[in-house]
C-alpha cells in the first residue's frame, strides 16, 4: 500500500466517521426535542384519567387503564433514555475514529517546512513582553481593586445592629434586622392599667394614655374562669379549649358554599388582613389584624356579624416605633387571641401584649421585648387559671412566660434550652395534673403551669418548628417538616412510643381524636395514622396545601386548605369523605365552633355557617 492509498483511506475513514457521528448527533437531538415536546411522564390524558379517578375512586376499570397507560409512558421514557445513553457512546466512538483518521491524514500530508529565515529580535520581543506583562498584571489588580469597592459587605450592617442591647436599627433599610428592645425582665411591673373612663367604655385619649400610671394592680374585674370552666364550652383560643383541636360542640354543618351563600348565616368584611384564627365566647367573636401602621383587635357579634368594637393597640411602653420586619405570609398579627370570658388577650409580632374587657375596655398592656424572629412571632396565647401563658421562643433563645391575667405582671418566667419556634402551647391533663406542653427545636417539653417548672422534656425535634403539639390517648404528639412525627409518653424512661417521617406538617398542627391522629401538610396531603401505633390508615391529596390546622368537632375532621375548601372526613380508619364545601376565597385560619355553627376566617371575610 503506497502513501497515496493510505492518505485516501484515512481521508475516507474521516469522512465516514464524521457522517456517522453527524447522523447519531442528529438522531440524539431529535430524540431530545421529541422528549421535550411530548414528555411521556406528563401526559395530558393521564392527568384527565387521574382527575376522573378522584370522582370515581372505586372504579377498578379506570385504575387498570391508568396503570396500563402509566406502564406505557414509563416504557417510552426509559426507551428514550436508553437511546440517549447508547447514542452518546456511538457518538464518542465515531468522534474517536474521526479524530485519529484526521490526525493520521494531516500527519501523513505534512511536509517539513522551510526554516523561518526572518528572526524576530529577542530584545524587541522582550520589550514588548515587559510592556504587556505590566499591562496584564496592572489590569488584573486594578479590576480586582475596583471590584472590591463596587461590592458592599452586607454582613457589616447586620453586625452593627445585631450586636449589643439597645442598638439602633440597621443603617441599610433593606436589611431585615429586628431591633432588640428591653427584655421582659426590665419592663416587668410596667403593666398598664386603664383609667376610669376606659372602664366606662370610652377609649382613652392620647393625653390620658400618657398620664396613666403603671402599677401592676388588678382593675377589680371578676376573677377569670378556670380551665375546667372553659373546657368543652367555649372555643376560647387557638384550636379551641386546651389548644388541642378537639371541640365538644355538636351539629356542625358539613355543607356550605361561600359563593352562592348556601348555609351562610352571615358574612362580614374584616377591615384588615391577618393570619390568626377566630375565637368565640358566647355571643362575641374575636380576631386581630395588623400592618406596619396599626394593630387592631376586633370583636364581632357572633349572631349577626356586626362589628361590636375595635381597639387599636398603641401607646404601650417599650413598643418599637417601627415594627420589626416580618415576612408577608406571617405578618404582625399571626398569633390568635385568647379569652377567659372576662378579658380578651392579644399579642403581636412587635412583642406588644394587651388585655381588653369583653366590651373593649383596655385593661393592661405591655411590651415583652421585640422578638428576634425572622418570619414574625406567631405563637398564640393560652390561659390557665389566671395565668396567661406565652411561648416566647426567638433567635435569642426560648422562654415560657406566665402573666397575671388581671394585671399583666409576670408571675413566672422559665428559660428554655431551645431555639426559635412558631408553635403554640397546649394544655393537657397528665397524671391528674395540668401541664402546658410546648414544641420547639430541639425539645418537646411539659411544664407546670402554676410554677413554670419543667416536668419532662424529650430531645426529638429539629428545624423551624411551626406546628403545635397535640395530646390524646395519653400521648403527646409533635411534628415538624424535615424532622419527624413523634408520639411521646411523658415521663417514661423510653418516652418515644413511635415516630414516622413520611408525611410531615410545616404549619398546620396535628390533631388527635378517636384513637387516630391526623396530619395536614403544606403540600396538600392529609394523612390518618393510628394514634397508638403510628400505622398509617389513609392519605388524601387536596388541590392546595394546608396552613390552617385541622380540627375535630362533632365526630368529624375539618381541614381547610389554603384555597378555602374544607375537607370533611369521618373519624374512621377507612377514608370517608363527608364533603368539600368551599368558602370562595383563600383561607389560612382554623375554624371556631359552637353548637350548630362553624365560624371561618377567609382572606377578606368572616363567615358564620350553620344549617338553614
Amino acid at each position, binding site marked *: 500500500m503506497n502513501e497515496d492509498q493510505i492518505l485516501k483511506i484515512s481521508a475516507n475513514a474521516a469522512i465516514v466517521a*464524521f457522517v456517522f457521528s*453527524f447522523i447519531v*448527533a*442528529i438522531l*440524539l*437531538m431529535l430524540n431530545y426535542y421529541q*422528549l421535550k415536546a411530548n414528555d411521556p411522564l406528563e401526559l395530558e390524558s393521564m392527568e384527565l384519567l387521574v382527575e376522573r379517578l378522584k370522582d370515581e375512586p372505586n372504579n377498578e376499570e379506570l385504575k387498570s387503564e391508568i396503570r396500563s397507560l402509566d406502564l406505557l409512558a414509563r416504557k417510552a*421514557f426509559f426507551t428514550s*433514555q436508553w437511546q440517549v445513553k447508547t*447514542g452518546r457512546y456511538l*457518538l*464518542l466512538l465515531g*468522534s474517536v475514529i*474521526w479524530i485519529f483518521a*484526521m*490526525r493520521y491524514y*494531516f500527519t501523513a500530508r505534512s511536509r517539513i*517546512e522551510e*526554516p*523561518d529565515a526572518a*528572526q524576530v*529580535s*529577542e*530584545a*524587541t*520581543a*522582550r520589550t514588548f*513582553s*515587559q510592556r*504587556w*506583562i505590566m*499591562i*496584564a*498584571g496592572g489590569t*488584573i*489588580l486594578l479590576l*480586582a*481593586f475596583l*471590584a*472590591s*469597592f463596587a*461590592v*458592599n459587605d*452586607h*454582613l457589616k450592617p*447586620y453586625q452593627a445592629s*445585631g450586636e449589643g442591647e439597645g442598638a439602633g436599627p440597621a443603617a441599610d433599610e*433593606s*436589611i*431585615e434586622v429586628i431591633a432588640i428592645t428591653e427584655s421582659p425582665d426590665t419592663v416587668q411591673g410596667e403593666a398598664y392599667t386603664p383609667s376610669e373612663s376606659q372602664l366606662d367604655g370610652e377609649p382613652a385619649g392620647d393625653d390620658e394614655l400618657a398620664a396613666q400610671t403603671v402599677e401592676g394592680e388588678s382593675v377589680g374585674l371578676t376573677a377569670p374562669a378556670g380551665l375546667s370552666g372553659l373546657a368543652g364550652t367555649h372555643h376560647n383560643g387557638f384550636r379551641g379549649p386546651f389548644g388541642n383541636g378537639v371541640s365538644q360542640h355538636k351539629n356542625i354543618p358539613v355543607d356550605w358554599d361561600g359563593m352562592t351563600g348556601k348555609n351562610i348565616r352571615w358574612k362580614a368584611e374584616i377591615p384588615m388582613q391577618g393570619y390568626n384564627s377566630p375565637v368565640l365566647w358566647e355571643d362575641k367573636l374575636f380576631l386581630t389584624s395588623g400592618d406596619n401602621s396599626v394593630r387592631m383587635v376586633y370583636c364581632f357579634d357572633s349572631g349577626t356579624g356586626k362589628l361590636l368594637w375595635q381597639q387599636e393597640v398603641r401607646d404601650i411602653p417599650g413598643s418599637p416605633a417601627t415594627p420589626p420586619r416580618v*415576612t408577608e405570609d406571617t405578618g404582625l398579627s399571626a398569633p390568635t387571641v385568647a379569652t377567659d370570658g372576662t378579658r380578651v388577650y392579644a399579642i403581636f409580632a412587635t412583642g406588644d401584649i394587651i388585655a381588653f374587657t369583653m366590651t373593649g375596655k383596655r385593661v393592661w398592656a405591655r411590651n415583652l421585648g421585640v422578638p428576634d424572629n*425572622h*418570619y414574625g412571632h406567631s405563637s398564640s396565647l393560652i390561659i390557665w387559671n389566671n395565668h396567661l401563658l406565652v411561648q416566647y421562643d426567638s*433567635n435569642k433563645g426560648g422562654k415560657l412566660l406566665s402573666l397575671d391575667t388581671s394585671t399583666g405582671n409576670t408571675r413566672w418566667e422559665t428559660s428554655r434550652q431551645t*431555639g426559635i419556634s412558631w408553635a403554640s402551647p397546649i394544655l393537657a391533663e397528665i397524671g391528674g395534673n395540668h401541664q402546658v406542653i410546648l414544641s420547639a*427545636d430541639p425539645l418537646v417539653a411539659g411544664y407546670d403551669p402554676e410554677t413554670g417548672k419543667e416536668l419532662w422534656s424529650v430531645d426529638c425535634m*429539629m*428545624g423551624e418548628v411551626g406546628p403545635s403539639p397535640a395530646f390524646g390517648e395519653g400521648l403527646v404528639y409533635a411534628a415538624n417538616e*424535615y424532622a419527624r412525627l413523634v408520639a411521646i409518653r411523658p415521663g417514661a424512661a423510653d418516652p418515644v412510643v413511635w415516630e414516622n417521617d413520611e408525611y410531615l406538617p410545616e404549619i398546620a398542627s396535628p390533631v388527635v381524636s378517636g384513637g387516630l391522629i391526623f396530619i395536614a401538610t403544606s403540600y396538600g396531603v392529609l394523612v390518618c395514622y393510628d394514634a397508638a401505633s403510628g400505622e398509617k390508615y389513609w*392519605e388524601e391529596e387536596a388541590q392546595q396545601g394546608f396552613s390552617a390546622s385541622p380540627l375535630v368537632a362533632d365526630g368529624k375532621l375539618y381541614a381547610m386548605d389554603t384555597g378555602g375548601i374544607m375537607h370533611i372526613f369521618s373519624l374512621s380508619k377507612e377514608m370517608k369523605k363527608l364533603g368539600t364545601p368551599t368558602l370562595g376565597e383563600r383561607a389560612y385560619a382554623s375554624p371556631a365552633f359552637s353548637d350548630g355553627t362553624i365560624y371561618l376566617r377567609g382572606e377578606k371575610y368572616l363567615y358564620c355557617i350553620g344549617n338553614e
Partner: protein
Amino acid sequence: MSKRVKIVLFGILIILVQVAAAQQRFPKPEFETGYVQPSPTTPEPRGLAVEYMDVLVLLAVLSLATWFALRSRSRRGILWLSVFTLIYFGFYRKGCICSIGAIQNVALSLSDAAYNISITALAFFLLPLLYALFFGRTFCAGACPLGAIQDLLIIHPISLPPWLRKSAGIIPVVYLGLAILFAATGTEFIICRYDPFVGIFRLDAPYHMVVLGVAFLLLGMFVSRPYCRFFCPYGVLLNWMSRFSKWHLSITPSDCIKCKLCTSSCPFDAIDHPTEESAPPPGRTYYRRFILYSLLIPVWVLVGGFIASKSYTYLSRAHQDVYLSELLIHHPELVNDPDNLDIQAFLSSGKTLDTLVEDARVVQQKFRTGGWFMGGFIGLVIGITLLNQVVFRKRKDYQPNRGDCFSCGRCMDYCPVKN
C-alpha cells in the same frame, strides 16, 4: 487545512455541545399506596487497593513517559502513552483523581487540621512534581488526561507572539492563587468544579461546562493545549520544578548542527533559539530596568496583597455561609420558596441566622488574611516575570525551554541527528 475541513470540524463540535446538553433527570415516580420509598444510600468509597492501583499506574505512566522522552526518544511511544492515559485516567477514572485537583487537597490539609489528606491524593500531587524536578514535565507529555485530550486534537498549530504568551502566563498564577485560597478556606474546589474536560470524560456535565470544554478543544486545534499553557494551575508548579530539572529532554541527542529544522516543530513555542541569533540587548538600559524591576518586586507584592485582601467581600461570597447569610439578610422572603434548596436545607438544619452570620464573618476574616498571601504571591510572580525579561542567558544551541516544554517529543522527530 482546507476551508471545507474546518467547517466540518466546527459542525461536529457544535453538535457535540447540543447532545451533551440533552440531559434528563427522571422525576420521582408516584407509586401506589404500599410502596415504601427506599432510603437514599451513600455509595461506599473507592477501595484503598484500587486507589493504590491508580498511584501505581501513575508511577508506571510517568516512568514510561520519562523513558520515551529521555532514553528511547520516541514520539510515537509518548503519543500512545497519552492515548492510554486519556482512556484510563480520563474516560475510565472519569478525570478523578488528578494531580491538578490534588493541589486543593494539599492546600486544605495544610489549613484545616481536621482534614486528613489521603495518601493517593498526596502521591498524585507529589509524584509529577518530583519527576519534573529530575526529568522535566514528562507528566504533561503522557500522564495527564487533560493534556492528552488537547494534544490529540492539535491539527494546525499557530505560533503565538512572546508578549502574548508571557502576559497570558499570569492567568494560571492567578488561578493557582484562587484555587489555594478557596480550598484553604474550605470554600470550594474550583479546579474540579471548572475542569473543562471532566464533562467529556464522564459524558455528562452541565451545559456551560460542556460548552467550555468544547471551546477549549476547538481552540486547541489551532492554539495548542490552551488549557495547559494559559490556565493550568498545576502547570505553574511543574514549570518551576522543571526549570531545575537535572535531566531534561533535548532536541538533539548529541551536538546541534543548527539546521533549524526543529524551529517550527514545537506547537507550544517552547524552543529557545541560540542567543547569537538574536540581536544583543542594549546594555545600560537593561541594567537600569533590572534595578527598577528588582525594586518594584516588593511593591507588586504589597499592592497585590492589599488588593486581594480588600477583595474578600466578593471572593468570600463563594463560600456557602457567606452566600446564604447575605441572601437571607437581603431576601428574607426566600425562606418561603420551597424550590430554594440552599435555604430549605439551612432552615432544616435548625441553625439561627445569627449563628450563620457569625460563621460567615469567620470565613470573611480567613479571606482577608488569605488574600494577603494570595495577592502577594501573584504580585511576586508578576514582578519576577517582569525581571526575567531583562535577564539574558547565553545559549549556543536550539534548546527546549525547560519551564514551558511539555516533553512531548515532537522536536526530536524533526532533528536529523539520531545518535
